[in-house]
């Protein structure tokens, strides 16, 4: 058999493989996005009004572009997300370094607790920080007043949104960078130190540049996630009249009558902005090699900080106090207190005001348990299917020469740019006609989540895959292993921390996801995020906080189980690697 003849079946298989991925992505991404564009450009509901090519016009998009309120919201969005990302990178990178590369005490606890903000739905985070940092009634200000301090904290401001954004989305940066730091060969750092570089210089000239893909991926992800967040700017921005694009879009869908087409047109702005960011990321990364995981065995290096390790511990404790303990305490107060009117510090500690009223009401409602069960089910389905698909896409894009792999990458990235509220209606329009009872089933929710969070998962996996040197696979091929066997025995074990992290991330995101659930759930498939919104919209922060605590506990337990299951096998865990 000639060389050319031997490769022909491989090319055919690669072509079929790419085609299969493109078909899946068309169903999951392109078709709903096309429905969204039709909606944005025709001012019609494609299912109700049918397709009218003659009605396609860019007038609503032009209207949006020329609307000064959109300009104002866009400006606020960019400032909030850029500021929030800067804070998130500083915090996330710093803690990844502390946890993975230093001998700071209790770093396992720090790593696990540092991920907790990810479990908190943005709406609840906003409510928690409003309880703490409201200029009029915030608990922090109550204590400041008690201490005789006149200065007041005001989180109903742009700086408040940036602060909370940065804290809550630092775990995204942390997850990527911790995983990369753990997988990085320390020999380069050792070489730098042998050459006389100080630890500080080594960090900034060797370590951080080497994990640049992870930093940029984490930065990009946190930025685009912030772009799509509604809860935090809604709670903290609304009282100060600081609209952002998501709150504007939410209002468009909430006003009567709802303006989904206009909302879709505003979403196009987000899509363009995000597309530009993704292109920028690819340009930054193109032509540079970040391979640091090679065939040589190594152990992650741990820097001995000496007495300075107590300073890093103190900083970590302050961070945990601010990010985890304070808002959790605020939620606990809200969940157990009958009413949240707190006149002064003494009133806060008046135990007569506390009880289990909200929890009783929560569990008296049969829909609560139904939603918990459905959420777990849809979270697991999403994590498994999404994880497999993301690995397939990530591997194809980063490690093969399969045809159309660049298109696969681009299409898989599209959902990141579409806010959940808008993409939810796109899924409804696209999938309601599917046969076999698909609409109204748990599967439609799971597939919507898989599609919606594909960019997050693919990017998370790609960062891990990019660090595995090609020579390892080549060695397996030389030894006679096929592609699938090589993936199973070489790539998957090495990428396992990233795979577990990506699937866990997907699970968490699926459990919290509200926007794309709103239009797809049925009476028997209601999920926790929808119930949480029900309770919030019912004006009951106590009930909302109680349900949030339940959600956080469930997530914490599940993450802990995941941690235990994966620790022995891959020396990685969600808590540690993220």
């Amino acid at each position, binding site marked *: 058999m000639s060389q050319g003849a031997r490769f022909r079946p491989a090319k055919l298989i690669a072509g079929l493989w790419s085609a299969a991925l493109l078909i899946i992505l068309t169903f999951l991404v392109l078709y709903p996005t096309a429905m969204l564009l039709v909606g944005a450009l025709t001012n019609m509901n494609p299912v109700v009004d049918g397709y009218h090519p003659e009605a396609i016009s860019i007038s609503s998009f032009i209207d949006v572009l020329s609307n000064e309120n959109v300009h104002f919201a866009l400006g606020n969005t960019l400032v909030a997300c850029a500021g929030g990302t800067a804070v998130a990178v500083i915090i996330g990178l710093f803690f990844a370094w502390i946890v993975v590369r230093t001998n700071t005490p209790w770093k396992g606890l720090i790593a696990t607790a540092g991920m907790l903000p990810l479990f908190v739905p943005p709406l609840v985070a906003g409510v928690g920080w409003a309880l703490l940092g409201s200029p009029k009634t915030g608990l922090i200000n109550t204590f400041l007043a008690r201490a005789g301090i006149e200065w007041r904290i005001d989180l109903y401001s742009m700086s408040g949104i940036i602060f909370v954004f940065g804290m809550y989305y630092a775990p995204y940066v942390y997850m990527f960078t911790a995983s990369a730091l753990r997988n990085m060969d320390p020999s380069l750092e050792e070489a730098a130190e042998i050459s006389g570089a100080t630890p500080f210089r080594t960090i900034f000239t060797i370590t951080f540049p080497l994990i640049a893909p992870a930093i940029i991926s984490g930065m990009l992800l946190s930025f685009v996630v912030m772009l799509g967040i509604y809860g935090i700017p809604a709670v903290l921005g609304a009282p100060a009249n600081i609209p952002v694009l998501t709150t504007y879009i939410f209002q468009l869908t909430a*006003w009567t009558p709802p303006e989904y087409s206009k909302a879709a047109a505003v979403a196009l702005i987000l899509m363009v902005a995000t597309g530009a960011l993704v292109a920028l990321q690819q340009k930054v990364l193109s032509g540079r090699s970040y391979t640091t995981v090679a065939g040589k065995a190594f152990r992650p290096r741990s820097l001995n900080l000496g007495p300075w390790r107590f300073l890093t511990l103190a900083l970590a404790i302050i961070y945990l106090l601010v990010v985890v303990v304070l808002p959790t305490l605020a939620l606990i107060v809200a969940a157990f207190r009958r009413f949240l009117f707190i006149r002064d510090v003494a009133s806060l500690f008046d135990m007569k005001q506390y009880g289990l009223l909200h929890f009783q009401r929560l569990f008296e409602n049969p829909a609560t348990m139904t939603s918990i069960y459905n959420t777990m089910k849809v979270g697991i389905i999403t994590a498994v299917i999404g994880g497999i698909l993301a690995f397939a896409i990530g591997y194809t894009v980063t490690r093969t020469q399969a045809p159309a792999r660049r298109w696969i990458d681009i299409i898989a990235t599209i959902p990141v740019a579409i806010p959940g509220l808008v993409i939810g209606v796109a899924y409804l329009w696209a999938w309601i006609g599917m046969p076999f009872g698909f609409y109204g089933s748990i599967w439609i929710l799971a597939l919507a989540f898989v599609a919606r969070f594909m960019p997050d998962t693919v990017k998370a996996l790609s960062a891990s895959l990019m660090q595995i040197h090609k020579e390892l696979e080549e060695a397996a091929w030389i030894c006679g292993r096929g592609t699938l066997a090589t993936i199973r025995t070489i790539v998957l074990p090495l990428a396992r921390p990233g795979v577990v992290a990506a699937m866990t991330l997907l699970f968490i995101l699926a459990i919290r996801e509200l926007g794309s659930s709103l239009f797809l759930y049925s009476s028997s498939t209601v999920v926790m995020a929808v119930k949480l919104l029900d309770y919030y*919209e019912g004006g009951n922060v106590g009930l909302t906080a109680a349900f949030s605590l339940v959600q956080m506990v469930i997530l914490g337990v599940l993450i802990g189980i995941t941690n235990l299951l994966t620790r022995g096998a891959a020396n990685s865990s969600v808590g540690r690697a993220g």
Partner: protein
Amino acid sequence: MSDTRISRRTLLGAAGLGALGTTLSYGPARAQKAYNPPASLIDAARREGRITYYTAAFAEVEQETINLFNKRFPFVRVEMVRAPGGQLITRVKTEAAANKLTADVIDHSDRGLMKGIEDLFADYAPPNADDYIPDVLISPKLWPRITPGWCVAYNSELVKNPPKTWMDLTNAAAYKPGTIAQVIAPSGGTTWTRIMFERQVLGENYWAAQAATKPALYPSGAPLSDALVRGEVEIAPLVYNVIYTKQRDGAPVQTFFPPEGIPIVPYATGIPKTAKSPNAAKLFLDWSMSDEGQIHSIKDHGNLTSLKTTPFNPPGFDPKTAKLWVPKFDEFEKLRDVWIPEWNKIYGYRQ
């Protein structure tokens, strides 16, 4: 000015309101009528066994209604889908277009939106249809299952000089900026009703005078009611059912129905032609519309009623003096696109 005499027996025009809408008041009290459905309806509902209930009302409140219904009729399982108004209508329209409408009962606060999809509904009238005020009905297929009304609420721990009228909410000298709060006009039919009332009843300049107090603006009533309890804001017009249960449970709030009038928001509820359990749906809606269901709605949730006579009075509500106000339906639809931009401009709200 067109106060309407609704019915000689029950409704009295309230002089001096000067409204383009309709002013109503309840008629003299009558004995409560028991709801005793025919055995054939009960048997048919029992065979169907379940309904899917789409509603824009608050889920927690509706669950209580379902629980109460199930105490009497435990053989009908009620599965609820709750969504905000605009999203619920989008869902209904899309499902119907795809022939996948799963609802057996659809319940919505915006009569205008429901009127737009009237064709989806089957003919339906409750057994006590004649007991309902004709002027609040927009279609023989759609019925006011609940009827929330607007009140003024204030935080009793913070407000030492409480308002007593709608006009007091324009007193910029008495209340500092941010003390009073409002739900934005474009938030939906419930608030739009109040906005119409303010302009049509309280005067052309009411908005400007109220906006001069620099009120805090909230996207909807529920978070505003919570903010009021917490003391973020001190005074707010609120739909009574949003604040009633908090007040009942001991929150530091007080409410009153202003003497100038009470804008009411009759819901529109119907049974789709495609309902899979039309008998169970009818049983649920008949019960909800009965005196028994309306008393529950008033007593437990702080709603009013669109019955000609109120079978129960919520605290602070005197049916002899209360002036209910409902917008004329054609104006409700026609004026929205014109007046809301004006309101936005006056209040500085960016839509």
